[in-house]
């Protein structure tokens, strides 16, 4: 993985010193709350319902075990012994004291981490396919380019006061596991006619109040032009994006208002003027960064039958929580942060430490964070899978539910977030209680439930096979249900099935939707397939007919 050189380390250290100075000026009363807000946000620090919340960047979801241990240390020393992994591969701490945050950042800097631009109207942490570098279907590893983007976007002087936040995702596989089509910019790696890699460029995707699938504005961008092209897009957005209404300020609104073709023309025109500037990447720099992501020294192994003679519980875990690896003899293991009794994405300090030890023993000394709030051990030898399962089981991290209904995406909701209209963690609990029969979940097959406590859509509800959106009706928590959304490959936005349902009725409503699916599905058809084939109406009828 990427290692900081003196430049990177110096920059992060100087940023910590800057934030310490800003925090001291705020605590001394020199900076008002209004003046401090944009400064602390640019360092991932929100003021939430109970306490500040610090969001730490995990660039493109890659952590060394040393870094994971530091995250455990932060949870123990400054928080309440746990952290929460987010849908953008970051980690959040919900209970730090403001005065401690500069020390937390200083601790992070010792392991080459930071919280720079994890919030605020600037370019956020760049995300990637969580199977990058190990996926069998990959064209090339996107992470070197993510790192190059991370550096370019860090403290970018021109783009730190954008109209609104700006998110970039990169994927190197045809299968989109990075939700790239619902990002401000999505980059899909492609091979050009000369065999060299480049990018298909999508712009203007996003969720929130106005969910939109991104539009392809360039079919192939040679890799040496990556930064100049991004700079051209950001410059057009910075100049022309709306600043009068924060709900219409994302780039998707600009692309829509200006028109796809006009937007593309503006970008291309700007790009023509800067494409051969100092931003043009030379091969030496690309190779320098790529070298950090060179394939690990894999042992020459053959695939084995890793389940032969093993007990059913292990076999179920193997089937649901492990994934194919590009190298024979290896598999990727998904570490479930979706145990029935915890908030999706939460992990304790002790679990983090023990997982780091396990990763050092059975995998590569690296851990990945996923968009669906789980973790991955990316390089497990098939012969070590059983031991891995045993280790994870002891830690409570082996719930065999990856890809099933209870592998939910869930924002922190009303319990923690000051923006939320309704709770989401309690609903996750209700769903877990209702659907506790794992064999039923397996029979249902792949099913993504995504839940957000408000229109900001941190839980990506628009692209859930079943989406749940918390709404406030006269001070009560209600939930709007959508079906048919997806963010992988053929992206689609879910359709609202009807009026929102009461807090107590969410799991019942989902049960009715599943009844329709089970009775209507054809052989091997997933829930999403069935919704796409028969439409929303049969589901709507079933949910609302029953109440009359």
């Amino acid at each position: 993985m990427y290692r900081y050189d003196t430049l990177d380390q110096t920059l992060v250290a100087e940023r910590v010193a800057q934030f310490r100075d800003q925090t001291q000026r705020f605590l001394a009363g020199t900076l008002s709350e209004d003046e401090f807000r944009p400064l602390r946000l640019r360092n991932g620090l929100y003021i939430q319902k109970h306490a500040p919340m610090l969001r730490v960047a995990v660039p493109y979801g890659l952590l060394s075990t040393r870094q994971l241990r530091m995250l455990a240390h932060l949870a123990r020393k400054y928080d309440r012994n746990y952290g929460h992994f987010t849908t953008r591969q970051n980690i959040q701490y919900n209970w730090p004291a403001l005065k401690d945050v500069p020390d937390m950042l200083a601790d992070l800097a010792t392991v080459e981490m930071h919280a720079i631009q994890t919030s605020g109207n600037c370019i956020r942490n760049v995300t990637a396919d969580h199977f990058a570098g190990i996926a069998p279907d990959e064209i090339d590893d996107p992470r070197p380019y993510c790192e190059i983007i991370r550096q370019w976007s860090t403290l970018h002087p021109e783009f730190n006061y954008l109209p609104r936040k700006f998110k970039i995702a990169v994927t190197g596989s045809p299968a989109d596991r990075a939700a790239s089509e619902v990002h401000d910019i999505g980059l899909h790696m492609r091979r050009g006619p000369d065999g060299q890699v480049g990018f298909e460029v999508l712009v203007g995707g996003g969720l929130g109040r106005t969910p939109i699938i991104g539009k392809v504005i360039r079919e192939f961008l040679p890799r040496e032009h990556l930064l100049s092209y991004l700079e051209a897009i950001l410059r057009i957005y910075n100049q022309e994006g709306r600043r009068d209404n924060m709900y219409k300020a994302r780039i998707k609104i600009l692309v829509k208002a200006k028109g796809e073709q006009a937007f593309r023309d503006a970008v291309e025109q700007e790009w023509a003027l800067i494409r051969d500037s100092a931003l043009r990447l030379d091969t030496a720099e690309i190779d320098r960064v790529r070298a950090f992501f060179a394939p690990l020294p894999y042992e020459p192994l053959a695939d084995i039958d890793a389940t032969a003679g093993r007990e059913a519980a292990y076999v179920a875990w193997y089937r649901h929580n492990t994934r194919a690896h590009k190298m024979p003899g290896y598999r990727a293991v998904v570490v479930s942060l979706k145990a029935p009794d915890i908030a999706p994405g939460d992990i304790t300090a002790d679990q983090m430490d023990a997982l780091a030890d396990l990763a050092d023993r059975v995998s590569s000394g690296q851990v990945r964070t996923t968009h669906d709030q789980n973790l991955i051990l990316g390089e497990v030898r098939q012969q070590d899978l059983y031991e891995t399962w045993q280790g994870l089981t002891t830690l409570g991290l082996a719930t065999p539910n990856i890809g099933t209904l209870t592998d939910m995406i869930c924002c922190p909701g009303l319990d923690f977030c000051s923006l939320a209209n309704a709770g989401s963690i309690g609903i996750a609990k209700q769903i877990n209680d209702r659907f506790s029969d794992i064999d039923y979940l397996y029979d249902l097959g792949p099913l993504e439930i995504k839940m957000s406590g408000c229109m900001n859509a941190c839980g990506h509800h628009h692209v859930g096979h079943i989406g749940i959106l918390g709404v406030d009706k006269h001070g009560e928590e209600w939930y709007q249900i959508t079906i048919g959304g997806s963010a992988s490959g053929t992206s689609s936005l879910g359709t609202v099935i009807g009026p929102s349902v009461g807090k107590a009725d969410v799991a019942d409503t989902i049960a009715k939707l599943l009844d329709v699916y089970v009775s209507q599905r054809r052989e091997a058809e997933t829930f999403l397939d069935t919704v796409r084939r028969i439409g929303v109406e049969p589901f709507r009828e079933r949910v609302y007919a029953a109440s009359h």
Partner: protein
Amino acid sequence: MRQVIKGRQVVGDDWIYAEKDCAPTGGRTVLPLADFLAARAAGVADAASLGVKLLPADDEAALEPYLADLPLVAVEFPSTGEGRGYTQARLLRERHGYRGELRAIGAVRVDQIWFLARCGFDVFDLAGGEDPAVAIAQLERFSVVYQPGPDGLTQPRRRYGA
């Protein structure tokens, strides 16, 4: 007299910021873009006494014919969150080759100074209540950067185009 930061020093400044529709005064005057363009089109005797103010929606390219003898461009930041001025500054410096004074005015707070300087601003007229000493300290905040830029700071280490 107004105090501004220039070359890491606090200096007195006698430029007059004129409101809309003002004719050039006797002293050195900064006019809104439309008035400036009208005045220059009409032919002014002393170009060196006439500066221009850009608002966020103004097109800096309109200044192109005058940049050679334009003494001052003041870019206004109506609020701290307004970010168009950063682009205007870079384009003036990098695309249009402007070498005169580039001044940030309006809601200019100490913590923006670093970014502004990196975009090519060389004079800062701070918002009321901002401490110039703290502002000047911010200019020393970082010794390294990732992006190329037109800043007149000491040559920081850069990743690209070093």
